[in-house]
């Protein structure tokens, strides 16, 4: 490994290289990936904002780098970007909290 860090920003540029060790699957993935982000029922701009929010919930540094740049390129404002991330954060924290019902159910069952 050339770097002392697990994450190196330069590695993002090497993403395409994954195809070298499995051409068929790599190519299929990138074809699929490209198709997903094409203009469809949702605009490419809307898809980029979803990707930005998911990049944060997945806490993927490469994705955050890529989709921050991508949304800026599409003219998305800072306010829109932050709102999108809050949507992700709300779902993420909501998903944690809603499991509290499981805890409550279990307590109610076990507790006298």
């Amino acid at each position, binding site marked *: 490994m050339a770097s002392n860090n697990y994450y190196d920003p330069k590695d993002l*540029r090497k993403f395409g290289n994954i195809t070298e060790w499995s051409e068929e699957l790599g190519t299929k993935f990138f074809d699929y990936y490209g198709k997903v982000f094409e*203009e469809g029922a949702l*605009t*490419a*701009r809307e898809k980029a904002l979803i990707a930005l929010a998911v990049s944060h919930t997945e806490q993927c540094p490469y994705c955050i780098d890529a989709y921050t*740049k991508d949304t*800026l*390129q*599409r*003219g998305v*404002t*800072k306010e829109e970007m932050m709102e999108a991330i809050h949507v992700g954060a709300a779902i993420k924290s909501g998903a944690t909290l809603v499991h509290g019902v499981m805890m409550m159910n279990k307590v109610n069952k076990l507790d006298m």
Partner: protein
Amino acid sequence: MSLKKKTQSLHKRNDELANANRQLEILSNGIFKNGELPTFANKIKETHQFPLRPKKLEILQINVGYMCNQVCEHCHVDAGPDRKEIMTRETMMQCLEVIRKTEAHTLDLTGGAPEMNPDFRWLVEEASKAGIKDFIVRSNLTIIRANKKYYDLPEFFKKHNVHVVSSMPHWTRGKTDKQRGDGVFDKSIKALQELNAVGYGMPDSDLKLDLVYNPSGAFLPGDQASMESDFKKALMEDFGIKFHNLFAITNLPVSRFLDYLIASENYEDYMYQLVDAYNPAAVENVMCTNTISISWDGWLYDCDFNQMLGLKVASKVKHISEYNEALLNNRNIIISQHCYGCTAGAGSSCQGVVA
């Protein structure tokens, strides 16, 4: 990265980047010298497009001076109120001789703020008699509201059927003012409304009003058609403004934008972005293949960027006083790493995307 706003040109500040040779040195050193990234010449050799040669001349672009009422962060001209380089009437007369006999169908006046040249109106009046098909003036919009003497510019443009091309980096105040200076957004909106009021930008109007979008930072422009649709929707909804086309233009690493890239530590990443987005199809139609750029003092260049880098045409004919279109068209275009800016993605030119 947010940096302290500059109010003077690089020239006025005696900054090392005011020197074109220093800029060219930076563009040839580092990642391009150590082979991390290919030089532009080597890149176009891969697709057998070297040397770059002109096609039919279509556009004469005249820079009538570097004086401007704004000091934009990204300006490749390093224009500003402190720049005194202004085209004289004598040089304009030489330009007019060329305009009358050129094969080019488009005349494109730029600056600085071209309207600040004291002989600007005279030049427009004379040039409009030459029967050029498309007569463009690149207006920064705020000049129309800068001083009473400019208030009638929309009527003046209309009278001479000038095609107005104006800069507008975003439909929001924050992004616009950050790039172009405080208060620029509000003045630009007012100017656009005034242009609309005399008929510019209306769907069926011959009075053409186009906007130019430059990204306000170290990133490339998005898809031109989508940006145009977003701009049209927002400007109509918020201000009732109409315009025809949006040209998405990539910022080239020249002059103040190069200064910004270096100061914000974005230079290498930006050059990577440009090289990664290299598109050989854009090379085919890059604007230096159909344009001649003329400087305020009459020298000839392959494009406005080469003008700012002091790279005169590689031809026996180097000055407007000795203009010869046939001889000029038989030349190699001068290139350096800044040219990647015109070949990234869908390409970039003064008329927007090219591929």
